[in-house]
């Protein structure tokens, strides 16, 4: 007999944390502007948030701007090679000191009254200083620094000075980050461009999607029709019992879609390289041994899984997906393309073509995702006493020795993990 669906609709006494009730969730999590404000404080300004990949900051002075929640920050490599994450806000009257997406700088100067800051955030100078004698000390007024943690080239920052070490926060996800980076096929990973798009919906709708295998053949039917039979076969994980999803603690989860590509160093030789890549095999074979050619070509679609790191970044097969909450009903997404740093150009270009095919506002995949997410946002305003269900696969979920919960890739184990972390953070 089926277990009855238990859900306690929200009342004026319900705390935010109580809105997540195990495997059912109150729809106001998507629609309540006050919840969004609390999420900024209790989640985005409290935990580790991904801001950059090290390949974006190769040289001293290289910077990019980013947002953590509503707050603009600058991610910059200083002269000593250290990565700093600085609040993008002049200490005088609050103007941003940098509006470029990326670049190289010797420092940052506020356009309003020309206060100038070093790459480490120190206030170096200001014009007409007489008015500040005995009023301020420059040493007291640097651009505010955030905590910075780097793992596997992934740069995270936090406003929370007391936060646990990044490695502890990532926990069991570290193993999967290591596996993900193997798609460099012996080369380090580098970013190679990004698609940015926005949708009118709450950020958690996107967060759920990265480990939602259930939607793939439905929403992405026309993408699957547009690829060759081999790629389509590779992505046909719906009835593959090796295709699993796994909770990793702290809100993180992973969904395996292509089990034979989980560890790209492991190759039993049985896999036929895809016919569509034969021109690349021919080109690379001119000056590379066959094992290396095979290693690179097997990695062109990326790792065989989507790793979802709470709250804002996914390492999704061959790209990074970064979400940025704009408001309760608007979210921006970046799909960052990856390549082999120093690897063969023909293979890196093929990776960009694969990325263009699925990703971004013109891709064959992302617009359909965005459409589905906007429909969720619209629909969630109806039926205020009707829960959102993330209970798929509860009947077959099991616990691994390391504590991870495991179920099929089409099950909602990853979403339950994310909402458990949401609940924990909103309770604090």
């Amino acid at each position, binding site marked *: 007999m089926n277990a009855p669906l238990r859900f306690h609709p929200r009342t004026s006494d319900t705390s935010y944390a109580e809105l997540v009730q195990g495997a059912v969730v109150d729809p106001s999590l998507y629609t309540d502007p006050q919840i969004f404000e609390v999420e900024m404080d209790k989640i985005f300004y409290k935990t580790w948030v991904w801001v950059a990949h090290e390949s974006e900051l190769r040289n001293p002075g290289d910077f990019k701007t980013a947002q953590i929640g509503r707050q603009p920050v600058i991610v910059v490599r200083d002269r000593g090679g250290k990565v700093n994450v600085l609040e993008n806000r002049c200490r005088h009257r609050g103007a941003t000191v940098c509006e470029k*997406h990326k670049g190289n700088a010797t420092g940052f100067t506020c356009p309003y009254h020309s206060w100038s800051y070093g790459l480490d955030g120190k206030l170096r100078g200001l014009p007409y200083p007489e008015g500040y004698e005995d009023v301020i000390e420059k040493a007291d007024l640097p651009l505010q620094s955030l905590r910075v943690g780097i793992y596997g080239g992934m740069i995270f920052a936090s406003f929370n000075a007391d936060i646990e070490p990044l490695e502890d926060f990532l926990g069991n996800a570290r193993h999967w980050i290591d596996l993900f980076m193997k798609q460099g096929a012996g080369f380090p990973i580098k970013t*190679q*461009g*990004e*698609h*940015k*798009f*926005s*949708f009118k919906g709450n950020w958690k709708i996107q967060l759920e999607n990265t480990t939602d295998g259930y939607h793939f053949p439905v*929403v992405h*039917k*026309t*993408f699957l*029709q*547009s690829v060759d039979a081999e790629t389509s076969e590779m992505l046909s994980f719906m009835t593959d019992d090796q295709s699993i999803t796994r909770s990793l603690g702290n809100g993180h989860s992973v969904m395996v879609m292509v089990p034979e590509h989980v560890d790209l160093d492991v190759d039993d030789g049985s896999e036929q390289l895809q016919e569509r890549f034969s021109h690349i095999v021919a080109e690379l074979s001119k000056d590379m041994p066959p094992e290396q050619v095979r290693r690179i070509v097997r990695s062109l679609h990326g790792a065989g899984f989507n790793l979802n790191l709470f709250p804002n970044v996914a390492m999704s097969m061959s790209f990074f997906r970064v979400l940025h909450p704009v408001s309760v009903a608007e979210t*921006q*997404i970046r799909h960052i*393309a990856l390549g082999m740093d120093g690897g063969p*150009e023909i293979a890196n*270009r093929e990776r*960009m*073509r694969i*990325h*263009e*095919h699925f990703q*971004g*506002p*013109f891709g*064959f995949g*992302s*617009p*359909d*995702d*965005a*459409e*589905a997410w*906007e429909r969720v946002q*619209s629909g969630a305003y109806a039926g205020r006493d009707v829960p959102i269900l993330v209970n798929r696969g509860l009947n077959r979920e099991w616990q691994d020795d390391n504590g991870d919960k495991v179920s099929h890739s089409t099950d909602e184990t990853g979403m339950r993990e994310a909402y458990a972390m949401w609940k924990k953070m909103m309770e604090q």
Partner: protein
Amino acid sequence: MNNTDSLQGFSEPLAKAIAFIWQEAELLDRKDYASWSALWSEDGHYVVPIDPDATDFAAQLNYAYDDARMRKLRIERLTSGFAMSAADASATVRTVSRFVPVHLSAGLVEVNSAQILVGYKRQAHTMFVANLTHRIRFGAEGAKLEQKVVRLINSTDALNALGFLL
């Protein structure tokens, strides 16, 4: 009066190119992708770059970099009825103007222009504003599009996902 008649005063190659570009715009607003597809030469590329200064499109990540194969797949997707973003795509109206010839000869015309496109969907109008460059070959088969580059003025910021062609 047809479009070409109204373009007296322009040199003939430019007038023919402008008429072609207006025809293309009208097909796209009507989402008549089969007819649009017939405007292309086999080796033509439809490009929506990200980097505003990009010229070597193959070496960079673009929003779209479609050769004949990808155009065919894209049209199949847009017309299949199974892609929900396309099945429920915005209605669009676009105007193309501010034509500036880059290259004019009897056989080949390259023209820069401005496109203001407004899409409408679910109670919201969304603007897509772009500089266009059309390269059109005039030959025995009539006019064929060799390259169309759509440089959105907000290409490096977040765009709305779209289920139609620019």
